């Protein structure tokens, strides 16, 4: 079993017989190897039952002089395939619980992958999993018809002056990025196939997931829950940059937003003055 886990499965199988992965984030890799393990068991069962059926159909097709034996059943056989099916499911359960930790629980961030916000206060219901040292880069993901809005942390509790972006999320590599996912109109579902599973953005609720990307690059996905006519156009992508480049992007983005805010404020003041002068 362990030997199988370590077999590198070529990229060719991705998207044909197995889910996508490739960003190096452990949850997507874990799901993929769990899928492949179940796939091997499933293939054995499928081939076995098909073989039994085909053999039976060929061997016992009606022929001259053939006599059907009048069997009503066999309790030993009934018990044995009930137990057999149960054992396969026990095996799948065991494999699932072994792999579950790596999929569900985030690893600690790389020491060099700052800026990391200080300890995040986990949600009261305990659904948000945090790494051992508790340090994550937490981004808020807000779904609205038909775009994703991301809010980046700045260390304080006021989220109104934070850096934000639409559609493209930029993250540092090596950092455990924790996502708080919610929606402000209808349901959406956050999904970047190479970065692990999908998590629904349900209005009135907060959903959590995480990823930890090893390789810089762009990872694409789209909304996976029907959210209206342009559901198909609600795309998302994650751009992973090395920490230094990420820092540069973050500063530039913050400067741009500040600049735009200032211009808006100036325009507002001018308008106020103009109306006061009348």
């Amino acid at each position, binding site marked *: 079993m362990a030997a199988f886990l370590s077999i590198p499965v070529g990229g060719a199988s991705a*998207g*044909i*017989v197995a*889910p*996508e992965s490739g960003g190096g984030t452990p949850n997507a890799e874990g*799901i*993929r190897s*769990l899928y492949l393990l*179940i*796939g091997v068991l*499933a293939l054995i*069962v*499928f081939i076995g*039952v098909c073989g*039994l*059926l085909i053999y039976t*159909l060929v061997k*016992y097709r*009606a*022929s001259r002089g*053939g006599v*059907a*034996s*009048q*069997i009503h*059943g*066999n309790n030993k056989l*009934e018990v044995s*395939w*009930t137990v057999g*099916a149960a054992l396969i*499911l026990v095996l*799948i*359960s065991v494999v*699932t619980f072994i*792999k579950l930790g790596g999929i569900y629980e985030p690893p600690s961030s790389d020491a060099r992958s700052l800026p990391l916000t200080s300890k995040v206060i986990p949600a009261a219901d*305990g*659904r948000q999993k945090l790494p051992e040292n508790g340090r994550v880069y937490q981004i808020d993901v807000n779904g609205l*018809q038909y775009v994703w809005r991301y809010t980046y942390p700045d260390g304080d509790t006021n989220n109104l002056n934070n850096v934000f972006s639409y559609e493209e999320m930029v993250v540092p590599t090596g950092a455990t990025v924790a996502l708080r996912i919610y929606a402000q*109109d*209808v349901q959406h579902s956050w999904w970047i*196939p190479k970065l*692990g*599973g*999908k998590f*629904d953005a*349900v*209005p*009135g*609720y907060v*959903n959590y997931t995480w990823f930890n990307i090893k390789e810089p690059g762009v990872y694409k996905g789209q*909304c*996976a829950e*029907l959210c*209206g*006519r*342009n*559901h*198909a*156009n609600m795309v998302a992508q994650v751009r992973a940059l090395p920490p230094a480049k990420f820092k540069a992007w973050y500063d530039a983005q913050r400067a741009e937003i500040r600049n735009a805010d200032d211009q808006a404020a100036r325009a507002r003041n001018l308008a106020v003055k103009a109306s006061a002068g009348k």
Partner: protein
Amino acid sequence: MTTAPTTAPTRTEPAPVPEIIAHNANPQPSGWLSWLTTTDHKKIGIMYMAAGWLFFVVGGVEALVIRLQLAQADSTLITPQTYNALFTMHGTTMVFLFLIPMIAGFANYLVPLMIGARDMAFPKLNALSFWLLVAGGVVFYGSLLYSPAECGWTCYAPLSETAYSPTNGVDAWIFLIHLTGISSFIGALNIFVTIANMRAPGMTWSRVPLFVWTMLTQSILLIIALPVIAGAVTMLLTDRQFGTHFFDPSNGGSPMLWQHLFWFFGHPEVYILVLPAFGMISEILPVFARKPIFGYRAIVAATLGIAVIGTLVWAHHMFTTPLPYAVLILFMMGTFLIAIPTGVKIFNWAFTLWRGTIEFTVPTLFSIGFLFTFLLGGITGVFLAVFPVDWQLHDTYFVVAHFHYTIVGGAVFGILAGLYFWFPKFSGRMLGERLGKMSFWTIMIGFWVTFLIQHSAGLSGMPRRVYEYADVGNLEIYNLISTIGSFILAVGILLTIINIVVSVRSGAKAGPDPWKANTLEWFTPSPPPRNNFDTVPRVRSVEPMKDIRRQIERQDRRTEEAATPA
């Protein structure tokens, strides 16, 4: 004293024929009026099946337009609005207006005959069930005149609330759920009462045919599940019309509530569609293997087991929503459990064929097609039951492929097997064997070409319910293959429709028992007279027709022996 000699009848006079004279009996209506006013379970059954076929064609055409739109990446054939309306109508039609009525049609026609009854327990209620279904279909398709619903057959709130679905399409959808729901609910009560009370003398529970067992179980599932969806759509209706905010989070409501209520109905619904097909397969395979069913009691137990577990696993449709970890694990393990009785059934069917003499008639072929297709659908279900794996596969074309393998491979192939098997009983004529085999192979090839590749589309990241996609990876090729397959599938279905139309007039005469089958419906002429049975035979085993044939053989032999001088 003088009358004494007259009491001894003289042998030359013919015995008086017993005669029942009814006074003030109205003449039976004939022609189309006889269909509109009928309370005969057989006529109602045929009307149900005809309505089912009509909506099957409509839902099928909707699917073909969907497949045409997806044949190319970035297609502009139809608008997003039309696309969303089409998949909403396709799903709703196939579940509520094709499969449910089609199964109700078979059940109406066959259950009383199989248990040796002369009609259903409540014939007038039975007619009401059918006409409510028609009303549901009319109301739903009436929305084509204004603006059909665009929220999918699941109609998740808040998307289905007035703020995001302002037109009345959703209200028409709600009305359809109510009307077809009441139709199914009283239909289920009728079936349940009929089976519980009207069985032939000697038909104990261990001699009830397996199709009847599955219909009994299905009717219980309907009685459990339908009130819940009726409540849910009523809450949606009051949300939309009176501002009750049951599903609106900004006013203390919850979108999760809708999902729980919908799937508490929606998951048993899957078994409501598939169990009767299991029953049909369990009737057909023994006839053509010329063997008794393998493990009758195990199959009954598995049917009941599937029903019990099936009502307790609804949240596996919600693995990606904000649910506590413990709930995810509980529903994953529960879903695993269902695989056990389902697996038991597949082995029982395989061993029914084992050491038989299998005749490859069209009903046998569709039953075998069912076994292979449903097997794969069941196996992909195990992947989806593992919640971390479901996080990748949920709401993608992998799921679309999975449920078509179970619902088409299970329910539809079962129904087609049943159609070829019981059509001689319904009409008195056989369906064409050659055309039937052509139809079978076209349908099988078309189905596997359409849906096998959709697993790959899902694994490549294609979500369901998208009106367009970019050609990333091999998505365009996958979708083109699927579209080509869907048209092959459509040709196969068309061949069976042609077969029905041709055979109903000019098919070979069937006679009462063309297949030498096992159950009581074959004791009657084809089609059966209005009262079904002049005398109801006493049932001594689960295969009463086999007993009756043996008895006749014995009698023939005795009369032959008596006739031939020693």
